[in-house]
């Protein structure tokens, strides 16, 4: 374990991914600093979800990935699941599990096989469900929920893992504005506590709130920079066909100074 890799939660070198015989991600290298929130943005089909899945170890890839200073192959399945959580986009959810049961599934990597949940598990799940404001209807089944409510429950499931690295693909799909604001707040809370977060976000103004931006296009990571930098804005404008209009907001701190609209 080198001291250089200690400061990174996740590192990838020359990551290439083939789906159905076709290379869709071409030699991406990136580093995710500890305690930072990075937003992964880019047009449809840029390979964002694929890259996230590969980082989570869910699909085959070529290249080298180092998680918390330890190469990929050194991790056992269980240990990795305790340290890294992944929330997919439009994953199926069986309608007849209760909200509470779904959130408790996030504790599986921490529980002995078939063991009853410990008081700590129950406490973590309660906190997670309260965070997404789903605690009051914890005994409803998934089938009884609206799309946004369902997504919040899945967020709680990912949150309940208490992982050091949290990868979220479209975490706010269908989630209403107040709960999006909640999400921003708890993601910031998590990063302050040392958790590293990667989120694929389509809403650029939300993505711009992140600590860093990764811009992807056509299977390549075309830019890695800070959200208020001109370079980042240029890269974004370029991958979105120059349809973005950047506006500076008065009276904000440096980070939140920019909003983007369509033109």
């Amino acid at each position, binding site marked *: 374990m080198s001291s250089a890799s200690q400061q990174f939660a996740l590192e990838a070198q020359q990551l290439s991914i083939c789906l159905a015989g076709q290379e869709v991600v071409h030699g991406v290298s990136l580093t995710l600093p500890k305690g930072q929130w990075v937003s992964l943005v880019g047009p449809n089909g840029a390979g964002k979800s694929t890259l996230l899945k590969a980082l989570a170890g869910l699909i085959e890839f070529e290249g080298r990935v180092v998680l918390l200073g330890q190469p990929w192959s050194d991790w056992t*399945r269980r240990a990795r699941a305790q340290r890294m959580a992944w929330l997919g986009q439009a994953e199926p959810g069986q309608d007849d599990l209760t909200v509470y049961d779904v959130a408790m599934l996030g504790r599986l990597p921490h529980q002995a096989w078939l063991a009853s949940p410990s008081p700590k598990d129950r406490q973590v799940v309660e906190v997670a469900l309260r965070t997404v404001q789903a605690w009051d209807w914890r005994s409803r089944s998934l089938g009884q929920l609206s799309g946004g409510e369902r997504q919040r429950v899945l967020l709680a499931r990912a949150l309940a893992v208490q992982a050091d690295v949290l990868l979220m693909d479209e975490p706010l799909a269908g989630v209403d504005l107040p709960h999006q604001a909640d999400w921003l707040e708890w993601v910031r809370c998590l990063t302050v506590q040392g958790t590293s977060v990667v989120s694929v976000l389509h809403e650029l103004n939300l993505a711009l709130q992140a600590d860093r931006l990764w811009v992807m296009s056509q299977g390549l990571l075309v830019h890695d920079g800070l959200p208020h930098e001109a370079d980042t804005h240029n890269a974004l404008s370029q991958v979105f066909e120059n349809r973005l209009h950047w506006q500076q907001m008065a009276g904000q701190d440096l980070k939140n100074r920019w909003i983007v609209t369509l033109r």
Partner: protein
Amino acid sequence: MGSRFNPDPSPLGRWLMLLAIAIFMLGLTLGSEGWAFLSFVEDRQLVIDIRLPRTVGAFLAGALLGLAGALAQGLFRNPLADPYLLGSASGAGLGVAIGLIFLTGTSLAPWVMRVGVTGMAFLGAWGAVLVTLILAWGVQHTLRLLLAGVVVGVVLGACASLLVLLYPKVQGSAQAFMLGSTSFVGWHGCILMAGTLVLCGAVAWLTSPVLDGLALGESTAQSLGLPVTSVRLVLVAIMALCTAAAVAQTGLIAFVGLAAPHLVRSQVKAVHARTLFLSCGMGAVLLGGADLMARALIAPLELPVGVLTSILGGGYMLVLMRRLSKGGRSL
């Protein structure tokens, strides 16, 4: 056994237990001559040799089918998956036909016969599921999976019919078998099914967290560190074994495996460790009850129980389809 996660106040388990006891008592006293409450002493041999194994056999076969159905629906995340729709029952049927052809007329002990036929049924069931999965290119595409299962079921069913036609010596036993009947279940069959049920139930319970994880999608299950791929293979084998053990003793009894898990889930929202066992109980009560009706409805004649479950189960499936489409959900 309590729920691992959410305390579940549903009394379904207790209700099933009461129903099972009632069906059991009725099953012992109901004969082809009608009700015979008081003749237990005279008819003791009859009760012990015929009615008791038959009633117990109906329970066990129903429990096996209920478990197979619950496993299929959990594994393939498909509310319509069932041992019949995936072709495994037809495969088991073909296996039984082949087994009967080879073993009828040989001087083997009855229990060796039973084990042999069950083994053939198992091979047939497993083969059929494999062919279905290959034809459907995996489990991801629901419609493809069900269509492949139907195709495999029809083709293997036709093969079994053809074999029976070519070998008239097995025609009698084969026909009872195709219709599905509990009337020939003896103690050997019961022991075999009980053993299979204990084994499969234990494996299903041990692997149930993977089914819970799969409820959130395959990738999520993997991200939770669950050994999805290996467990899925084991559970397909277990599902085929359950189907085979039931089919080899009672023939093709449709819809129990489909209806039992559905009825359970309509009452109980819980993790698989619990719903799997409730599905077993529900299957047992369904088939035990159907067996009782098959004997009582046109007594002293008797309906093949498979015909009865097909009619009742078909009706239930129509209601289910209607309810699902009304709820605006696609299958």
